[in-house]
């Protein structure tokens, strides 16, 4: 099988969110002597970019994004040890701790931002929903995160975003992390009021803010 054909298989498996198919295609690629870096850069990354673009155009939706991100992560579990063996290392843009704040159980916005960040090359640690402010901070410390991303849907749960910043300040760690906020009831005005580093109305906004944050580090 030609390299081109294998790269096409890799691309299509991500576009289709086919985790098993992607793992098989990665196996074939390695067998054919394609390096892990080439597999990522020439086969998988262009597909992830295409998935993000299609989502932005409303051509695909959250499930396709999440399945593509899951397929990517499955493939990376195979590829990362190979990269290390060959003396290389996957270039990660940064680490993001993400979750929905305490008292709020809405997950969709958070999930879509998480998927979008993964597609843009971030390592994402998803704490789920109803997450205590201290848990965001502890996880960020544990994994040496670059960014804390906090989602809140309700007008009366957004004060918990402020609480995260206060917990960071209490630990003397505010300057270590870029704090991004989003969710249905949040606004730029609110972000400014609580001293957040950025507000994203859409998942695309969040990715742009995150990229900007790590580029300025």
């Amino acid at each position: 099988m030609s390299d081109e054909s294998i790269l096409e298989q890799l691309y299509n498996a991500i576009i289709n969110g086919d985790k098993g198919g992607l793992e098989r295609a990665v196996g074939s690629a390695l067998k054919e002597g394609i390096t892990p870096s080439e597999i990522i850069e020439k086969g998988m990354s262009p597909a992830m970019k295409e998935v993000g673009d299609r989502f932005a155009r409303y051509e695909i939706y959250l499930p396709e994004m999440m399945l593509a991100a899951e397929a990517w992560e499955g493939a990376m579990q195979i590829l990362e040890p190979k990269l290390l063996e060959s003396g290389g290392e996957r270039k990660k843009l940064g680490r993001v701790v993400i979750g929905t704040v305490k008292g709020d159980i809405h997950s969709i916005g958070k999930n879509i931002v998480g998927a979008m960040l993964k597609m843009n090359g971030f390592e994402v640690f998803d704490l789920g929903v109803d997450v205590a402010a201290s848990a965001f901070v502890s996880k960020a410390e544990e994994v040496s995160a670059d960014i804390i991303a906090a989602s809140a849907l309700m007008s009366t749960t957004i004060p918990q975003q402020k609480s995260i910043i206060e917990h960071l300040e209490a630990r003397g760690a505010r300057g270590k992390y870029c704090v991004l906020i989003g969710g249905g009831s949040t606004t730029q005005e609110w972000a400014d009021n609580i001293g957040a580093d950025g507000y994203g109305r859409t998942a695309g906004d969040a990715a742009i803010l995150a990229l900007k944050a790590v580029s300025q580090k």
Partner: protein
Amino acid sequence: MLSFDTVVERALTGPICTERDFDLGIFVPNLRKIIEKYGIKYDPGNPVPADDDLADRVWEAGLEFLVETGVYCLDTERRILFTRQEIEGALGSAPCNVVYGEGKDARLMPRRFPEDETPPWCSGCGAGPVLTEWNLINVVKTYAEDPLSDGITAPCLTKLDGRDLVAGSPRGVEGAIRTVLLVREALRRAGRPGMPVVNEVASAVRATEHIAGHAFGNPKTDALEIGTVHELKVDFDALNKVAYCQAVGNLTFAENGVILGGYAGGPAGVAVVCAAYHPVDLLVIRGVVQHPLAVPIEGGTTSMREIIWARSMAIQAATRNSSLPIVAPGYTSAGPMTEMCYYEFAAWVMATVVSGGSVEVGPPSRGVMEDYSDPMENIFSNAVAHASAGMSRKEANKIVSRLLENYENKLKDPPPGKKLPEYFDIASGTPNKECIEFYRKMRQEFAEQFGLKLPLTSPYL
């Protein structure tokens, strides 16, 4: 209909499943299969569809999808499954023509059909955040003074005595209680003390807050709004609210927000999931009304073309096949005192009413901007709702299509409009001259452009 305790038992003992597997392994593939099987296709050229056969297919698709998928309980990580027979049993005993409120302010919420001449139920004024107690009283009072207003949806108080109102804290409980008392005071000032409050309190998130606020309202003739979680999920907190309502004999607005671009996918998926929620609202939430809030993933506007189509489709599907009334809530993207805000409200309200639904008119500015809760656009929406009763779906489709042309390219970057104190005299609790003139200008435009004769019922007009 199955007892509520049977539903709880299924939540406790149903098939175990992770949330990820429910979302991506069951919900998504089942929905895709059903959409394909029933040939449900979005038609952007007709935002207000008039295809009865398609409406009935959406209904059938929704029921089949629910049987195959069930409802996910987040606390037990189990699926609550229903048979077709159980669903039909619930639909067969669905309530209709329920009375809300007390005394001379009591109002009937009717069952309606597509193109029905029966006047729709109109409640409103709500869910948007307000900064001060005076503002809350004033916007509620002004809305309640319009005779076309049937019920109140309490705005969301975000501060208590100048401090953040935090859900889940004692301030959440106090905020809920105070909101109900303030709304009651506003209704007294409006001369409509028996008017029903139908969401109880927008600021309340937890069951404790809902129950506390509710205890200070009129427990049997107000309604408590209980929401599911996107998509087809519930948690114990929601079920605890239901248990309370069952015990006190309370009326329940069963709210479900289907996300366009989320697990439901595109407009066809949103329509089918909305239809699937209809029996869920009876069986799980024990609602006496379905309250379908479909919004795009980017936030709370209900005036987008895809949302108008999907919700019209789902409302037609349900109202043709079930007696459970539908009250559709909605927000706009543009802010108060803008032409776009009036166009947006008119579009989704008209589409809802001709599809067989009633309306709950929410705030402008996606419901997230503090003190952008404008009673005048809500009063305008009441008028549009009444003027749309009996209109054909084809006629509404023409008007809504023209309205969409006026605003849909600005939905992502809408005009912010004005803040309450800029168009409202807070001291006297009345809209100012500029606000009233703007209303009259828009009313005139709707008469000339669309031939709509909007009733002038508010004392300020």
